[in-house]
């Protein structure tokens, strides 16, 4: 996030939510957005589905899944057409405006309306409302990124925000809600094939040099392979040994069948886990690590805030701190790595990562920070951290307009698979459920997987609310309980991705060309009613 | 945002607002003789029921105080209970958020002082004070305690003579009261629980319209006792006293300053409200009741020394009324054409009509006399009559119906104007009235007071100004005689006796300040009985009428029949009676509304009728 949760919810006149359902995926941010709406902030929801917040939205653009770029370009077309742009900001702080002007000129509201299947007047109103507001954050989530054009979707939103000068100000900005508790940290810490911690590219010689010196060893200079592309390399034998730390690709990655094949072809699979996950079952060795409550450390939240995690308990058995495990393996593989405490590791991170230079456990625990954490960039011990990014100047200098064009999703409805399926989160579970399905109460609240069908489609399929249905795609077939409503548009359906034997047996492994993020948000499926007698027979077999 | 809706016409609020007047009616008709603690408790429970439930003192405190009060009523309380009530009520009054809590607690605290005796009675003796006993409302609230349900029932039986006799048992002025009584009897009429009170005055008027009072024989008087009682003043109080004394067999000698009897009934109330020939019907009947002698045109205290009168008679009843008009202390009151309204009405009562043709008349004041003066001025041909009053219209002491009639006849009300100066022409006659506009302010007593508003003074042109700001009692000679008075109002006991002067009694306006006819009549009645007692007798009065058996109550909601008036455009041109007669049908329907509380309910019990 360029801004903080507090400023985008407390200081905003208009809030634009794009492909984000914070009430379920980020509930406490959802609560603060509801507070903002109650306070009088106007709300624009851009989402193919009636999320709960859309009931309170001033404008809901219920667009076709996979058409975000067309939407953003349409907004910019209107900004220019109605002179809603921030001339001074564009002049002083950006470059390549003329290029984007040419591209968005093609995206008239009428054309965008056709692509997105929305009302052009509503698009115009949204553009005016957003552009004219003094403070208006764009908040987005996986509805923007989980497309094969996800990176361009983000770029197009960034273009849109720049065009009206809403960067570097309180209550504005472009704010991705990062999914998991430390997904921001995982990226920051260099778990990335081409970047060291702090987004330092390993193809820059000085950077490579710095890390080789700091770690006292020669390093591999070849840029690595992104996780989602590794699966392909496993099946071809290019990758033979894999260490998975706390991930469950068998549940979370698209096209589960393909993942299963890849993991099964490995020579040696090591999993560091808390539970016997679907992925762990495939391992050669399982190493018992520790949960958040059993170790010291830090998490970095979606607003770049580094906050402390503290050890509360120890459990019976021989679990070990995960850093101990990594250190032992390094030593046994021949790299001499002394055992360090979490605080000492953070000091090493600070020493090699300029954005973290001012961060240490000591400082996070101090009265100066007073439990508020530190937001990176925090480049020295006397810097307070950075609340809002790009104030006065963009990190790269001038803001760069990069024109993007609408490209349809990789899989589009056809006769065989006529319905678009989206996936997403529900409030009561988290990702692969490894943690949440251990709670009886949560299971009672959200016991099983379901599929949201549109009323019209359901009528055609003769499916009633609560019926069991078969859902199949080119990649697999599963069963789910039908929930019939108007939440999705006709021809579109939605499934949560948390459950075993769930949505990811169906999803497409088409990847974004840059980030290699899978297109979880669009695949096509076929839905069939299971005749009651068959279902009963199946149930009795179980 | 979400959808909006108009107010639901079938909502509880709408339904409640339709029925809630029944609740206020119920409160208004609280029966005389109720225990004040039950009244307080019902107020408190009402308030507790109105709580929104937000704040502790009101939500939890009011029910608690109600429970403690119930404990007092149940006879389970001690002084500690009272202390707890007081402590909790003070906390509620001090720390409540809105008026529901503090107002309710304030009433409790005031009640603790106001009804301290009743609280003590409940705590010590576990019962109400002796004075607490439910009474038939109309009878109890009539100062003369006339048996109203009985005479209404007689009208319903078309026994008008019986009706008149039933009234005369307590009040020898049925005609006067039929015309001009302010009818306090109607205030708590139980019929109000259903819709509105019985038109008691209207029915009495119907009866005396059907049968002239002087056509109905009065009860036979007692044989003569030989006692002589002097009555000073031939107004309603004096003549009532004379009437009852005469029936008891005493000789009543009435000293009257004018050449005719009736007092304010004749000289204060204009003919259009009470025709003089109708007054004579009451007076003729009274004079025919027994041994009554009238000495006209004699001013006791001036023409004859008071002491002399006292010495000559066995007892004396002073009922000289409040006959002189008060004046204003502002510059210019001495101008020509500035009169006291009482004087003006007196002149008219004596048959001398002033000619106001084409003149602008201003009446200062807001009481019944002011209305009488204003309406009379209209009838005397005035081009324009304004009534200037210091407070708001709703604060006027005149009967609402009088104000309404005055307005209908063309009197202009100018309210919230305080007289500052009467301006004069060079010849010394008045030219108009300057006033200071007022604004309403805090309460003093039952009405809000006023203070000068931040507005410029106004001036109203006038050819004649009539001052109607109250009446005075010519008390001087009697004070010299030894009677005590507070600001010229005589001090009298509840039995009308004068302290330290055995055999001297006083009553009517001179003992109360200007008031109503019926209170004067009550004083005359009380005085007569107590003089009889003083003289050593216990005479009982015979009544030749009896209350008929009640008919079944009609509980269907039925409107109240009002007495019709001649149209304003016609009546304002003469002094003829403005009221019309009720029709037979109207009267019978009105009679049928009476719930006969003398028979149903407490009236059937011993002591339940207050007769």
């Amino acid at each position, binding site marked *: 996030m360029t801004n903080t*949760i507090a400023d985008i919810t407390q200081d905003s006149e208009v809030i634009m939510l794009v492909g984000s359902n914070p009430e379920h995926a980020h509930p406490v941010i959802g609560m603060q957005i509801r507070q903002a709406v109650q306070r009088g902030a106007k709300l624009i929801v851009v989402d193919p589905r009636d999320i709960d917040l859309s009931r309170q939205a001033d404008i809901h653009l219920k667009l076709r899944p996979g058409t975000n770029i067309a939407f953003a370009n349409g907004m910019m077309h209107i900004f220019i057409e109605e002179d809603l742009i921030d001339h001074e900001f564009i002049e002083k702080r950006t470059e390549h405006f003329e290029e984007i002007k040419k591209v968005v000129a093609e995206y008239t509201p009428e054309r965008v309306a056709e692509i997105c299947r929305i009302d052009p007047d509503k698009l115009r109103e949204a553009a005016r409302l957003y552009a004219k507001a003094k403070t208006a954050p764009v908040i987005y989530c996986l509805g923007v990124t989980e497309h094969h054009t996800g990176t361009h979707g983000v770029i197009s939103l960034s273009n849109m925000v720049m065009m009206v000068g809403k960067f570097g100000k309180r209550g504005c900005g472009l704010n991705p809600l990062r999914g998991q508790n430390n997904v921001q940290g*995982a990226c920051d810490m260099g778990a990335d094939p081409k970047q060291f911690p702090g987004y330092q590219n390993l193809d820059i010689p000085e950077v490579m040099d710095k890390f080789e010196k700091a770690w006292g060893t020669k390093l591999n200079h070849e840029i690595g392979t992104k996780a989602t592309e590794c699966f392909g390399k496993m099946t071809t034998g290019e990758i033979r040994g894999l260490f998975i730390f706390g991930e469950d690709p068998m549940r979370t990655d698209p096209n589960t069948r393909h993942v299963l094949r890849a993991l099964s072809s490995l020579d040696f699979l090591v999993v560091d886990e808390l*539970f016997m996950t679907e992925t762990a079952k495939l391992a050669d060795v399982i190493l018992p690590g520790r949960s*958040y409550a059993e170790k010291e450390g830090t998490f970095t939240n979606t607003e770049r805030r580094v906050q402390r995690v503290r050890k509360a308990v120890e459990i019976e058995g021989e679990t070990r701190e995960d850093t101990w495990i990594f250190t032992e393996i390094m030593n046994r593989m021949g790299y001499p790595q002394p055992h360090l405490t979490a605080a000492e590791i953070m000091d090493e991170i600070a020493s090699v990562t300029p954005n973290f230079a001012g961060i240490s456990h000591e400082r996070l625990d101090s009265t100066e920070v007073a439990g508020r954490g530190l937001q990176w960039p925090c480049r020295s011990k006397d810097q307070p951290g950075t609340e809002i990014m790009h104030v006065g100047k963009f990190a790269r200098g001038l803001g760069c307009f990069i024109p993007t064009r609408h490209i349809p999703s990789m899989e589009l409805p056809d006769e065989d698979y006529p319905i678009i399926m989206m996936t997403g989160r529900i409030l009561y579970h988290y990702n692969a459920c490894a943690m949440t399905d251990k*709670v009886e109460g949560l299971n009672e609240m959200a016991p099983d997987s379901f599929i949201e069908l549109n009323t019209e489609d359901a009528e055609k399929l003769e499916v009633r609310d609560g019926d069991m249905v078969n859902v199949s795609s080119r990649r697999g077939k599963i069963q789910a309980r039908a929930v019939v409503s108007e939440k999705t548009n006709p021809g579109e359906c939605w499934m949560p991705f948390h459950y075993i034997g769930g949505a990811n047996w169906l999803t497409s492994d088409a990847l974004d060309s840059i980030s290699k993020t899978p297109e979880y948000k669009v695949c096509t499926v076929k839905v069939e009613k299971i005749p009651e007698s068959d279902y009963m027979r199946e149930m009795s077999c179980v | 945002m979400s959808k909006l809706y108009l107010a639901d016409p079938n909502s509880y609020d709408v339904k409640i607002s339709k029925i809630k007047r029944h609740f206020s009616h119920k409160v208004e008709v609280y029966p005389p003789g109720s225990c004040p603690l039950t009244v307080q408790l019902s107020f408190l429970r009402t308030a507790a029921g109105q709580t929104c439930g937000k704040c502790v003192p009101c939500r939890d405190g009011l029910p608690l105080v109600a429970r403690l009060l119930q404990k007092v009523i149940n006879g389970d309380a001690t002084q500690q209970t009272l202390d707890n009530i007081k402590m909790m009520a003070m906390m509620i009054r001090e720390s409540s958020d809105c008026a529901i809590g503090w107002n309710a607690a304030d009433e409790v605290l005031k009640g603790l002082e106001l009804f301290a005796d009743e609280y003590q009675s409940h705590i010590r003796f576990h019962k109400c004070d002796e004075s607490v006993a439910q009474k038939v409302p109309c009878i109890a609230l009539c100062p003369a305690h006339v048996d109203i349900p009985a005479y209404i029932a007689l009208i319903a039986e078309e026994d008008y003579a019986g009706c008149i006799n039933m009234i005369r048992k307590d009040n020898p002025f049925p005609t006067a009261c039929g015309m001009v009584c302010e009818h306090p009897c109607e205030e708590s009429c139980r019929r109000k629980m259903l819709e509105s009170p019985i038109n008691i005055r209207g029915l009495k008027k119907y009866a005396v319209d059907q049968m002239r009072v002087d056509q109905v024989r009065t009860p036979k008087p007692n044989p003569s006792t030989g006692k002589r009682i002097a009555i000073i003043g031939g107004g309603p109080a004096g003549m009532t006293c004379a009437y009852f004394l005469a029936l008891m067999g005493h000789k009543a000698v009435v000293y009257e300053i004018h050449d005719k009897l009736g007092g304010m009934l004749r000289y204060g109330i204009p003919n259009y409200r009470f025709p003089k020939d109708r007054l004579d019907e009451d007076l003729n009947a009274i004079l025919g009741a027994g041994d009554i002698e009238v000495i006209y045109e004699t001013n006791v205290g001036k023409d004859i020394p008071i002491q002399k009168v006292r010495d000559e008679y066995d007892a004396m009843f002073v009922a000289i009324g409040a006959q002189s008009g008060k004046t204003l202390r502002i510059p210019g009151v001495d101008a020509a054409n500035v009169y006291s309204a009482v004087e003006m009405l007196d002149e008219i009562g004596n048959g001398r009509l002033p000619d106001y043709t084409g003149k602008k008349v201003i009446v200062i004041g807001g009481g019944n006399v002011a209305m009488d003066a204003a309406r009379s001025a209209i009838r005397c041909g005035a081009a324009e009559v304004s009534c200037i009053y210091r407070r708001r219209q709703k604060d006027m002491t005149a009967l609402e119906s009088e104000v309404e009639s005055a307005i209908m006849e063309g009197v202009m009300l100018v309210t919230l104007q305080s007289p500052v100066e009467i301006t004069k022409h060079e010849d010394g006659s008045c030219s108009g009235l300057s006033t200071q506009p007022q604004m309403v302010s805090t309460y003093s007593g039952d009405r809000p007071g006023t203070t000068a508003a931040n507005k410029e003074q106004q001036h109203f042109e006038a050819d004649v100004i009539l001052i109607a700001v109250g009446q005075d009692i010519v008390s001087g000679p009697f004070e010299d005689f030894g009677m005590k008075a507070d600001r010229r109002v005589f001090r009298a006991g509840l039995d009308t006796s004068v302290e330290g002067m055995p055999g001297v009694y006083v009553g009517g306006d001179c003992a109360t300040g200007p008031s109503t006819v019926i209170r004067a009549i009550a004083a005359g009645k009380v005085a007569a009985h107590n003089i009889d007692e003083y003289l050593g007798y216990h005479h009982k009065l015979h009544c030749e009428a009896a209350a008929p058996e009640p008919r079944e109550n009609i509980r269907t909601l039925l409107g109240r029949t009002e007495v019709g008036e001649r149209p304003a455009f016609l009546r304002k041109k003469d002094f003829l009676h403005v009221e019309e007669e009720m029709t037979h049908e109207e009267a019978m329907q009105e009679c049928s509304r009476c719930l006969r509380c003398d028979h149903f309910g407490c009236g059937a019990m011993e002591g339940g009728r207050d007769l």
Partner: protein
Amino acid sequence: MIKLTIDGKQFEADGDKTILNVCRENGIEIPTLCYLEKINEIGSCRLCVVEVEGLEKLVTACNTKVKEGMEVRTNTERVRRARENTLHLLMAEHKTNCFKCLKNGACELQYQARMHGVDVPNFQPSHYDVQHAPFDEHPFLSYDPGLCIQCQRCISTCAKATGRHALSLERNAARVYVKVPFGDNWKDTDCEGCGNCAQACPTGAITIKRRKDYREWEIKKVLTTCPHCGTGCQMELYVKNGKIVDVMGANGPSNQGLLCVKGRSGSIDFVDHPDRIRYPLIKNKESGEFERASWEEALDLVASKFNAIKENYGGEALAGFACSRSTNEDIYMLQKMVRAAFQSNNTDNCARV
């Protein structure tokens, strides 16, 4: 800035503040029960009443703004008496079976009553006869109307802080209750089960059911960050005898004291769950079953296998994926292991899945 006098002392204060704000900033204690800053300032408990010179009634400090020249008295006989009587009223309507109550020791009513010397209520209750039995069908939350003091902190929290409006006021004639979504129809309500209402409740009326496992004085509190989504909510783990027994929202910059249903109720059970893997496991190639191993065996096996692959196929044939739900320190060390020991840059995290 304005000047005012409190208990005879001069203070300067921002005219936008309430008497309560100014008193608390200056260490002057004012008792409150219904007050929750910016959430519930309805002045219903009347415990914070103070005297203000020139005003006939006592005013509530929590929602009365300070004014120039104001003279406030916070601790007069009249004020103390009003507060005591208020507590007597509240206690009379409150089931005072404290030993049984889950909030014993953490109850604000209990605390205020003790501070004001109100141990036994002076009065009998007025409303007991209309009280409903507890609502406790909800998996995590329950409500006992007999313990409710109608302060409405829960209702305001649900309405204003969480914006959910799942709690409301319910009336039984002159008595108000909280209409809670914890009865047998809890699944059909808008309630998200977040439990912020329970955290707001000053008494034991709305409680997290887990409270039955501990008493306030038995626990150690550990401030940490929620393990679920990226909001970064701050929370306190309540630890008793080495076990986490409860979670309470802490006032962090991103959560303002709030938690969601997962944070509050989904952050405990998995930690010491029977399904946790507690020993290193090596798969028996023959049987396909996992067998318990020592750390030495397991780590040596891992190191030797990876070293063999590295030697035969180069570092690029090895990869290591990090978990987006582990700590920064863990992830840093993992990528360091991949780069320095595996000699590979095939390291990534699950950010995109």
